[in-house]
């Protein structure tokens, strides 16, 4: 066994102390008819071979692409100290800090996380932490229902489709979720339809607990958050802003436009894309909602000698104490990623974070100009920060052809929203501070050539894929 501690006679010593001949006796209470048929799995693999297997799998993922893909997950420069510090075993091999006397490191780091994110959000209370932006948004919606004792939430169609799908699943227990449509054309195309929101709020039979909108929204556009919030409040609903944290260095924070709750994906704060996680669900609220917010809270207090110290607090909201009446069932969270975000923010600093956001905006403007020059102009006219949609005929096919040219041309919106005809011929592209002018030029040149071809020679997507997926013996299904 690769990580077992026993010398050859250790097991015998323990068995002798127990007065038994075999460990099988300790399993005698499993009824005979229910005992396992055995494990039909491969043999143990020594570290040398296993490392080669893992490298081989990793190498089958393509990392050579000039990527313009964002859509909720963003490439950023992570200062080298972030991961070096995370790799200290005292951080990543510690458990939840239930024993505060020997967990002050984790506890203070969480308090600092709460403080840093509260500052970014301009809100009071930050829960540390949730699974990802989608789950945090769902928790925000449930929180709005608890706080208002209402059962209906309105969500903008212009937030990430995965977030809307997550909301639908979380609301499967009986709450009502309605979507606010987006404006179809004109100067506000692609943003939340405020007139439609007003109509949805006016339905007196089903009072609204919360209104959810994203800033920037899924299409990268700037939303009229203040107005959406005002309408929500006038109907007695809470306002939930779904935000991207780097943008908060330059865009108005949720607290400034009257949001009661903010949720978002913390991945851009020093966390690698990792094919979807582990990420960091951000969730924050005003002080008024402190008893409704789910998840871990750490507070500053003193020890019995008056020394400053930190401890998990308001625990009675949580599942281990309140059981079926808990604010949420969350237990294991994303603490290590909250730590990564804190180290990132401490290292990059407020001016550095502003530079990250502004440089991304500048690169995106460069990208917009280059793509327009190549024949792909913007789908929506409104202002954006660093992500936007462009119109490209046969967008899905072109997107796949560009992979052959070493370009990951953002997201073919039809893949994410197959039912929306307005998005059939559109790519969602983004730039950040790591995007280079050379990559932009490659993208533009490749796109220009694709748009010039008639597309008749486009092959099936699967044809380029290298074959030979091994099935582990015994792992058949």
């Amino acid at each position, binding site marked *: 066994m690769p990580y077992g501690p026993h010398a050859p006679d250790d097991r015998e010593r323990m068995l002798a102390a127990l007065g038994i001949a075999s460990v099988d006796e300790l399993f005698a209470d499993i009824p005979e008819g229910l005992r396992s048929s055995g494990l039909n799995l491969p043999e143990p693999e020594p570290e040398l071979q296993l490392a080669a297997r893992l490298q081989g799998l990793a190498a089958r993922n393509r990392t050579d692409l000039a990527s313009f893909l964002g859509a909720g997950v963003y490439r950023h420069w992570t200062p080298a100290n972030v991961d070096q510090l995370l790799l200290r075993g005292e951080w990543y091999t510690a458990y939840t800090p239930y024993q505060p006397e020997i967990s002050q490191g984790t506890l203070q780091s969480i308090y600092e996380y709460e403080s840093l994110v509260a500052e970014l959000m301009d809100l009071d209370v930050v829960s540390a932490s949730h699974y990802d932006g989608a789950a945090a948004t769902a928790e925000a919606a449930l929180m709005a229902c608890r706080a208002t004792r209402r059962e209906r939430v309105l969500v903008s169609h212009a937030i990430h489709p995965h977030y809307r799908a997550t909301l639908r699943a979380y609301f499967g227990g009986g709450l009502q979720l309605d979507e606010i449509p987006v404006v179809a054309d004109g100067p506000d195309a692609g943003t939340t339809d405020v007139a439609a929101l007003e109509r949805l709020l006016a339905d007196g039979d089903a009072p609204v607990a919360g209104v959810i909108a994203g800033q920037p929204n899924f299409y990268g556009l700037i939303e009229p958050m203040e107005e959406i919030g005002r309408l929500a409040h006038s109907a007695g609903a809470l306002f939930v802003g779904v935000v991207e944290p780097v943008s908060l260095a330059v865009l108005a924070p949720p607290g400034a436009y009257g949001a009661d709750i903010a949720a978002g994906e913390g991945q851009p704060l020093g966390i690698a894309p990792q094919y979807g996680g582990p990420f960091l669900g951000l969730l924050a609220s005003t002080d008024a909602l402190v*008893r409704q917010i789910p998840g871990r809270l750490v507070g500053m207090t003193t020890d019995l000698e008056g020394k400053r110290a930190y401890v998990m607090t*308001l*625990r*009675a909201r949580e599942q281990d*104490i*309140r059981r079926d*009446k808990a604010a949420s069932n969350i237990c294991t969270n994303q603490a290590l990623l909250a730590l990564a975000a804190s180290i990132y923010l401490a290292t990059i600093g407020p001016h550095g974070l502003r530079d990250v956001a502004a440089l991304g905006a500048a690169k995106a403007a460069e990208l917009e100009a280059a793509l327009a020059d190549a024949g792909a102009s913007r789908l929506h006219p409104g202002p954006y920060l660093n992500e936007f949609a462009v119109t490209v005929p046969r967008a899905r096919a072109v997107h796949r052809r560009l992979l052959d040219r070493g370009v990951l041309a953002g997201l073919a919106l039809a893949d994410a929203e197959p039912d929306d005809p307005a998005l059939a011929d559109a790519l969602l592209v983004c730039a950040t501070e790591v995007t280079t002018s050379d990559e932009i030029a490659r993208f533009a040149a490749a796109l220009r050539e694709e748009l010039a071809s008639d597309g008749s020679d486009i092959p099936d997507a699967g044809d380029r894929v290298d074959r030979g997926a091994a099935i582990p013996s015994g792992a058949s299904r």
Partner: protein
Amino acid sequence: MVPTDLRYTKDHEWVRVEGDEATVGITDYAAKQLGDIVFVELPDAGRTFEQHATFGVVESVKAVSDLFSPVSGEVTEANAALAGAPELVNSDPFGEGWMIRVKVAGPAEVEDLLDAAAYDALIAEG
């Protein structure tokens, strides 16, 4: 011995009935069992409760307990002082740590509750 002018529930609430008004709190024993009380969630005035219905929640550092109304009726006042000083429930459970005042709907219900001697016997059992 707990105060003899009060009536008690098996869930450790006390009630003092004066005319058609009742004052409700939790007993010294309950407060001690819970430990340091950190929050009391009380209903707004105007809400009505049946006898033995949950009217609020009391939280200590590591426990939480529902509060059950000893009598039916409409809440006329909740103790606002507990919002800033929940520790009053520990320090003076039968006095300043009171929780709600209720306009009693069914005065006869009080007769179903424990008197001081019966409540003392209950907590003596542990």
